[in-house]
C-alpha cells in the first residue's frame, strides 16, 4: 500500500471526509459507552443535551469555550508560521497571575481592566520570547522549551498560592486573594452567566483573521510557515517574523488565563486550567488553523466537555469519555485531512 498525491481534491473529498471523521468519532463514543455498560444512543443524546439542551447549558458551553478560543488562536497563529508553541498552558497562567497582581488592589478605577489585559498579554508574550530567541539564535527546539515551561509555570503558581498570593481568608485552600469588583469582567447580559471574555475572544478571532489575510505581517507569517527558504530569499526578515508571531501567540494564550480569572473565577487557583493550553492544540488543528474556524471548534470541543459532565452525572459513565472523544476526534480529523490530499493505492 502506498500513498499517492491528489493534485486537486474534489469538493466531495474535502467536505465528505471531515464529515466521515465526525461520524467515526461518534461511533467510537458509542463503543466506549457500550464498554462502560450504558446505552450508546442515550449517552450521545445526553452529551448533546448537556451541552446544548438548555439556555444554562448553552451559556456554560460558551463560557467553557472562551479560554479554548484564546488558546486555540494562540496555537493557530504560531503553527501557521511553523512555530510549535506547546506552551499555551504556561502563557495562560502568566496571564492569570497578572490578573491577580493588578486586580487585587494594586490598581483602581475604570482602567484596571484594559491595563491588566494589556499587561497579561505582555506577560504571555514575554514568556514565549525566551524559547523563540533560543530557536532563532541557537536553533534550540521550541517544542521542548515551551513544553517544559508549562511545568515551571505550574510550580510557580503553586508557590505563589502557598506564599505571596495566598488568600488569608481562604481557610487554607490554595487559592489567591479574590479580585476587586473593578477588576472583574462584567456579564454580557445581566442575569446570564456569560462574561465579556467570550465577546473579547470572538473579537480576537476576527482580529487574527484580519491580521493573517490583510496585513503584511500576516503575509509574512504565512510565507515563513509555508516555505522559510523562499521567504528569506524574497527578503523577508524570517527571524523577526518568528519573534512577532511568538509575541502575538503568547499574548493570545495569556488572555485565556486572564479572562478565566477576571471573568469566571475571580481568583487564581492551581486548577484554573484543566489543560486549556493543550486542548487549544486540538482546537486549532480541528479548525485547520483558521482563526474563525477556531471559534467553531472551540465551542464544539467545549460542548463535548460540558455535555460529558452532564452525561456522566446522568448515566454514570466516567467523564474521561470526553478526553477519549477529543483524542479520537483529533486522530480522525488528522487522518481525514491527510486523505483529502492523498489516496491510498495498492502496490
Amino acid at each position: 500500500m502506498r500513498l499517492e498525491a491528489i493534485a486537486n481534491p474534489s469538493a466531495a473529498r474535502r467536505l465528505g471526509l471531515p464529515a466521515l471523521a465526525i461520524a467515526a468519532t461518534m461511533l467510537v463514543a458509542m463503543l466506549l459507552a457500550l464498554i462502560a455498560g450504558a446505552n450508546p444512543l442515550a449517552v450521545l443524546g445526553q452529551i448533546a443535551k448537556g451541552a446544548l439542551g438548555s439556555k444554562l447549558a448553552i451559556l456554560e458551553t460558551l463560557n467553557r469555550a472562551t479560554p479554548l478560543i484564546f488558546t486555540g488562536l494562540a496555537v493557530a497563529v504560531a503553527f501557521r508560521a511553523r512555530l510549535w508553541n506547546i506552551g499555551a498552558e504556561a502563557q495562560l497562567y502568566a496571564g492569570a497571575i497578572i490578573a491577580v497582581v493588578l486586580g487585587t488592589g494594586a490598581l483602581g478605577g475604570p482602567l484596571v481592566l484594559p491595563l491588566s489585559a494589556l499587561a497579561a498579554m505582555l506577560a504571555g508574550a514575554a514568556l514565549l520570547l525566551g524559547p523563540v530567541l533560543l530557536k532563532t539564535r541557537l536553533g534550540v527546539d521550541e517544542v521542548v522549551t515551551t513544553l517544559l515551561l508549562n511545568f515551571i509555570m505550574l510550580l510557580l503558581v503553586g508557590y505563589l498560592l502557598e506564599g505571596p498570593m495566598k488568600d488569608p481568608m481562604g481557610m487554607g485552600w490554595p487559592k489567591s486573594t479574590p479580585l476587586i469588583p473593578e477588576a472583574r469582567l462584567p456579564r454580557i447580559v445581566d442575569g446570564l452567566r456569560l462574561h465579556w471574555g467570550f465577546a473579547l475572544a470572538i473579537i480576537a478571532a476576527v482580529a487574527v483573521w484580519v491580521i493573517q489575510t490583510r496585513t503584511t505581517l500576516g503575509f509574512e507569517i504565512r510565507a515563513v510557515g509555508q516555505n522559510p527558504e523562499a521567504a528569506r530569499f524574497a527578503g523577508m526578515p524570517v527571524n523577526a517574523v518568528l519573534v512577532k508571531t511568538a509575541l502575538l501567540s503568547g499574548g493570545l494564550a495569556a488572555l485565556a488565563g486572564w479572562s478565566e480569572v477576571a471573568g469566571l473565577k475571580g481568583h487564581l487557583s492551581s486548577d484554573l486550567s484543566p489543560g486549556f493550553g493543550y486542548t487549544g492544540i486540538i482546537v486549532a488543528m480541528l479548525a485547520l488553523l483558521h482563526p474563525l474556524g477556531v471559534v467553531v471548534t472551540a465551542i464544539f470541543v467545549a460542548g463535548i466537555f460540558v455535555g460529558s459532565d452532564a452525561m456522566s452525572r446522568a448515566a454514570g459513565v466516567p467523564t474521561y469519555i470526553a478526553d477519549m472523544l477529543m483524542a479520537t476526534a483529533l486522530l480522525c480529523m488528522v487522518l481525514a485531512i491527510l486523505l483529502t490530499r492523498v489516496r491510498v493505492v495498492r502496490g
Partner: protein
Amino acid sequence: MSKDEGAEVVLRLDRISKSFGALKANDAVSLALRRGEVVALLGENGAGKTTLMNILFGHYMADEGGVEVFGQPLPPGNPRAALAAGVGMVHQHFTLAGNLTVLENIRLGTERLWARRHPDSRGKVERLSRDFGLAVHPDAKVGRLSVGERQRVEILKALYRDARILILDEPTAVLTPQESDALFATLRKATALGLSVIFISHKLHEVMAIADRCIVLRHGRVVGEVDTHATDKGRLAALMVGGELSLPRAEARAPGPVLMQLDGVTTPDRGAVPGLKRLTLALRAGQITGLAGVSGNGQAALAEVIAGLALPSAGTLTVHGAPVTDWSPRAALAKGVGRIPEDRHHQGSIGDFDLTENAVLEAYRSRFSRRGWMNWRAARAFAQEIIASYDVRCPGPETRIRLLSGGNMQKLILGRAMASGPDIILANQPVRGLDVGAIAYVQSQLIAARDRGAAVLLISEDLDEIMGLSDVIHVISQGRLSPGFARGSMSAADLGLWMAGQKFEGADAA
C-alpha cells in the same frame, strides 16, 4: 551504425496510460527496445518521460497497458520484479551511501542478511569495471569520489545485478564534456556486449551522438520515432515542441561600466562543497557574463553572495561603485539586483501560495502595502500584468503556483525579478528543466535585459547555453574563477579542461 531490425525485442511497453487527476502524464505510449540498441527518450520537462520510466521500473502503476521484458509480462508496481527481470535504472540523483566503499555500495541490497557473502563479488566488480571501461577503485569511499565516478558506481551497481537493460535518467546533467564522452564510450561497449539502453535526455546533441533511435514524447504522447542518422537536431527540436524553433543567439555588444564588482571574495567551505577562493569578478552593464562549471564547484556560494543571502568572509563586494556592508536580500533588491534563483520550488516560490501572493513576494512592502496593510487589489493587478506580459499559462492569478508547469512558474519568477527594472541580474540556472519553448523565451528576456543596459550573470551547467548567450565566459572550479574569455575565443573542449580544474594547476604554477 544501423542496428539489425530483426534483433530480439528485449523490452516492450504496450499502450501505457497514466493519469494524475486531470493530467494525462502518459497516453497510450508504446515502445520497443531491441538487443544492443540505445533508444533515446526525448521530450521537454513534463512530457511524461520520467513517469513512463517509473512505470517500467515499478514505482508507479499504469492505469492501462503493460510491460514485457524478454517476452515475459512484468507484474506492475514491483521494483524488485523489474530488477530480477534484468532492468537497471540509474537515477538522476544517485542513491549511494557516501560512508561506504564502492564495493560495499555495489553489494548493498544484493545479499540476504544471514547468508554468506557472495564469494567473488570483488572479482565480478573488477571484471565489469574492465569490460565496460568503468574505472573506479572498489575500495574507495564513495563520499570522496567525483560526480562522474559516482555515476560509474551506479552503473556498476546495475551491471552487478545482471541488468540487461539500462535506463539512464538525464545522465549527463552533472558531467563535464569529457566525463560525458567517457560515459558514451561505456554505453557503446555495453551495447556491443548485447545490453540495451534507454537514455533519457533533453539535450539534442547528446541524443544525436549516442542513440540509434529516438522516441519523442510531447504531452504524454509519442509524437515521433526516428532513426537518429536519418534526422538532425532541428527536426528533433521541432518534434519536441511542435514547431520549428530557433534558439536565441546573442550578438556581442560594447560593454558599459562595471555595476557590480567582487574583489578577493572568499566564503567558507561547506563540507565537501568548496567555498569561494579569493574570487574577483566584474559584472558590466550591457554584458552577459556566463559562469560555466560542473555543479558543486562554488556556484551556489557565489549566487548567495550576489543575491544578498550571504556576506563574504573576506574580500569586498562593490555595487554601483560603493562597497556594501549591510547586505541582505532586501538590500540587494533595493540596489537593483534582480534575482532568478536556482531552485524555483524551494527558493523562488511558495507552492501553496497563489500567483498573486508569489508575484508580490519581493515587493509587498515597498509597492503593495501601506502602513502594514496589504493592497491586494494592486497585487492582483500586478500579477495579471506579469501573467499577460510574460505569457504565464494559468487559469488565473488565484491559481496555486505549484499547479503550474516549471516553465510557467519560471516565467512568473522572471516577471517578478524584472518588474522593478533591475540593472544587475542574477540568473542561476534559469532554464534548467524547462521545455524548448520556455527556454527560448527566458533566454530572449535575458538578452533583452542586457540590451537595455543591465549586467547579467548567467550561471549554468549547460555549456551550449553559456556559449550561446555570454559575452564573457568565466569557468568556476573548486571555488576558483578562471580569467574571462571573450565570446567565441574558446571551444567547448577548452572550457571543459578549465571545468575539470586542469588549467588552474597550470595557471597556479605559472
